[in-house]
């Protein structure tokens, strides 16, 4: 067994017990990154900085004053900014962009003595469900390299699953943490909207985006969440809600918890193997003393439409600043201002991003606003109400994450609609601002990881971690 196979909770014991050094750990990860370059999980690697930082932290450990995440070696999805480092968002237009400031999560993690090893690959501007739209090329699934890693945080999921780092930060707008976590067989959390500061997260859809960790265990997820969550005065949408110690929810049982299975999430289109897997897990929970009930979220069928209207509307405005005027790539040999805009954006954006900008521009246009954007907001309210009703009866929901396990590279990339529809089990969580966890749950007959999803009411991350931890330890 290699050190790099271990989760942070196990590594921390060895680091604090002086069995291993952070420097050694970083060196091992760097070796793996080199060896597994074909996974294409990283866009940039901070080799020198990471080594140097690891040595600093080793000194702190010797002095017994290391932070809560000392020796955690993190990959950062390439849309979270780090001062002085490139942040490309997997795009051409930001391929030369260096951020002048740190994201709030970066500040918090650095203060807790985490080491940043590099920026992970992703769908361009987080727009995709397969990490194939990146300007840096597609990410490959470590389990089967002819398969996608999922998206948009595919690089983060592949890096963790491939032992290229201990954990990684991702962002989730419609499933972008949970689905790749599921495809790659790692744990991923999408926190409640507002739980983690978005300051320094390059926005895809501001009202849906949330940063969260991808990692090797539920323990790790709790430890990382402890550090990154909390109110931030720099983010008006961050929740002024006290934080809790999420590790206190670990190692509990599930007796008396009521767990709902939303029937709309188990309909046609769901891979029977995945259905069977989750039903088995539900039975295990039942045996352990949880009550399993079937519930209904009647507006689920409108979620995809509402999601793609709201997300693209916000994206069309969020991405307008990438115009070649101030930073990023500017088209050459332009005659006037308009040509500078048109050429820079035409050359700088990939086709999926353009498709979504056009869609979003259209739904906000005068004459169409009421029929699309305003109506989608109404649907969003109905979806939120669905969840409110259900959470009056149950503690959390157990659902699949995607209709299938990881599909083949290139299989869906030319069929955007099918790709969009595969987000059916993940987007409602974002529309309602809820927390969700992706937890590995064995493999299908091809040996591909199956993931299950737990959804809870706002700020119930603790309870979700409790159930996930219980399931994880059953294995």
């Amino acid at each position: 067994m290699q050190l790099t196979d271990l989760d942070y909770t196990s590594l921390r014991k060895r680091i604090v017990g002086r069995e291993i050094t952070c420097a050694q750990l970083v060196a091992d990860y760097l070796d793996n990154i080199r060896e597994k370059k074909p996974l294409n999980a990283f866009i940039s690697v901070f080799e020198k900085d990471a080594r140097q930082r690891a040595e600093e932290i080793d000194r702190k450990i010797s002095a017994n004053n290391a932070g809560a995440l000392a020796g955690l070696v993190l990959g950062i999805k390439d849309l979270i900014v780090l001062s002085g480092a490139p942040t490309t968002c997997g795009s051409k237009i930001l391929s030369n962009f260096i951020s002048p400031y740190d994201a709030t999560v970066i500040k918090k993690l650095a203060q807790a003595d985490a080491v940043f090893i590099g920026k992970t690959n992703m769908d361009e501007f987080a727009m995709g469900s397969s990490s194939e739209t990146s300007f840096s090329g597609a990410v490959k699934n470590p389990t089967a390299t002819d398969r996608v890693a999922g998206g948009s945080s595919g690089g983060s999921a592949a890096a963790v699953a491939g032992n290229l780092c201990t954990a990684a930060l991702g962002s989730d707008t419609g499933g972008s943490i949970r689905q790749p976590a599921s495809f790659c067989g790692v744990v991923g959390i999408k926190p409640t909207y507002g739980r983690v500061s978005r300051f320094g997260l390059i926005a895809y859809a501001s009202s849906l985006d949330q940063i969260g960790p991808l990692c090797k265990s539920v323990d790790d997820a709790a430890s990382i969440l402890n550090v990154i969550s909390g109110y931030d005065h720099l983010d008006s949408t961050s929740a002024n809600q006290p934080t809790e110690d999420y590790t206190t929810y670990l190692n509990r049982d599930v007796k008396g918890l009521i767990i709902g299975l939303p029937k709309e999430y188990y309909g046609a289109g769901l891979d029977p193997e995945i259905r069977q897997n989750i039903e088995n897990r539900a039975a295990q929970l039942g045996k352990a003393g949880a009550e399993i009930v079937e519930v209904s979220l009647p507006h689920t069928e409108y979620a995809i439409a509402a999601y793609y209207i709201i997300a693209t509307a916000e994206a069309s405005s969020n991405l307008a600043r990438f115009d070649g005027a101030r930073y990023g790539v500017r088209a050459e040999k332009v005659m006037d201002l308009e040509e500078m805009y048109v050429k820079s954006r035409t050359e700088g954006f990939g086709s999926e991003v353009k498709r979504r900008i056009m869609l979003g521009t259209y739904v906000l246009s005068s004459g169409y606003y009421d029929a699309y954007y305003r109506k989608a907001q109404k649907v969003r309210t109905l979806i939120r109400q669905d969840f409110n009703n259900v959470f009056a009866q149950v503690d959390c929901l157990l659902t699949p994450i995607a209709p299938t396990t990881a599909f083949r590279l290139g299989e869906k990339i030319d069929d955007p609609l099918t790709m969009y529809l595969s987000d059916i089990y993940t987007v409602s969580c974002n529309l309602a601002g809820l927390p969700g966890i992706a937890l590995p749950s064995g493999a299908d007959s091809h040996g591909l990881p199956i993931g299950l999803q737990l959804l809870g009411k706002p700020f119930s991350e603790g309870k979700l971690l409790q159930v996930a931890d219980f399931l994880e330890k059953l294995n």
Partner: protein
Amino acid sequence: MYYEPVIGLEVHIQLNTDTKIFCSCSTLFGAVPNSQVCPVCLGMPGSLPVLNRKVMEYAVRLSLATGCKINNTSILARKNYFYPDLPKSYQISQFEEPFAEHGELVVKIEGQPSRRIGITRIHMEEDAGKSLHAESFVGKDESLVDVNRCGVPLLEVVSDPDFRTPQEAYEYLVHLRQIVVYLGICDGNMEEGSLRCDANVSLRPIGTTTLGTKTELKNMNSFRAVEKALEYEIHRQEMILENGGVIEQQTLLWDANRNVAESMRTKEYSHDYRYFPDPDLAPISMTAGDIEQVRANIPELPEAKRERFMRQFSLPEYDAQVLTESPKVAEYFEQTALRVKDKKAASNWIMGNLLRSLKERNEHLHQLKLTPAFLAELLTLIEQGTISGSSAKEVFEECLDSGKSPTLIVEEKGLLQISDLDAIEQIVSSIIEKNPRDVQDYLNGNEKVLGFFIGQIMRATQGKANPKLVNSILRKKLALLSK
């Protein structure tokens, strides 16, 4: 046919908060280009706006002062368009559900009945930066952008189309400026663009109520320019209509050098700004309690102050009007008046000598070495007959220059007026004795000789004798001689 103009105004008021509307950068005017910036106002990827609470407070002040109804919730929205001085490629403004609505301002023009001008809405927004093209340091094929002004807070006040003459529009602007300066939310500085006004105007046959096609006027950098541009545009539209033409909806730019408004040469599509609620900012909620807290701290407004000055200091309306035009002058007057008996004298000195000197010296009231306390001291010296009126002017000028107290100046310059009865009587007697022929002249009925005597007496006292006393004593003594 006779036409009636229908005019509406949109005024942008730049707020004098210390920091910008969505970040903590300074709003100071005139700094080195691009020195007052941060990731937020530069629109750096990943940065987020946080609303400055002071802007909310200022918006409440203006809404209350103009009788607007403040909405319980208002929405900050994105106005999307591309321009190099707009770093995010959208401006955060308000569209549906503005901050406040349905107010009014009463405009007074001398000799005419007061006019009530409706205020459609007041909303907050961020200013854009400045594009620089025709400056010496800008290359031939380039444009530069100064982002310092990006994110400076603005309140936009949109009027109903209630103006019927350019003069009404002018008076409204003057009044609105006075209010925002009084409220302490704007410095009112026109040269620095602290107030900017766009106008729209259409004509309709008198007696009809449907609105004609309107044109928009931009680029007026003074209130007089707004008045002139409106006059120009009304005349232009009148000519077209009288010749049977139709008004084309368009935006015109005022050229202050040539006194003409010219059509903006832009592409012929109307802009779709795709407004939608900014998902980075929660709706602004205003409770009755929040509003009352601001109301309690609103300074006295010009009209109330004018009426109070007339009442409290028994001033004529004209004086009260002049003194309350600016809150600083009003404050100066009040500080002076509270220290002296003769309030009207204080008013006269401030409206006359003081304001004139300020203009001549190109100084601001708050820089003045002659403080209200010193002016009051000077007025008291005059009141008590300690110095003469002509000496007072000299003391006034000296105090403006040196900042020494008037009493000290009087002593140093020996300007003390002789008010000692015995002393004056002695001097009068000696002058009468020395000039028997002139006395005879006077006794024969030549009143003019009186002036000669006074001149002699003043010369003998170097002008320091109290002229009133000199006059009465001289007459009394001469009268005694005639018996």
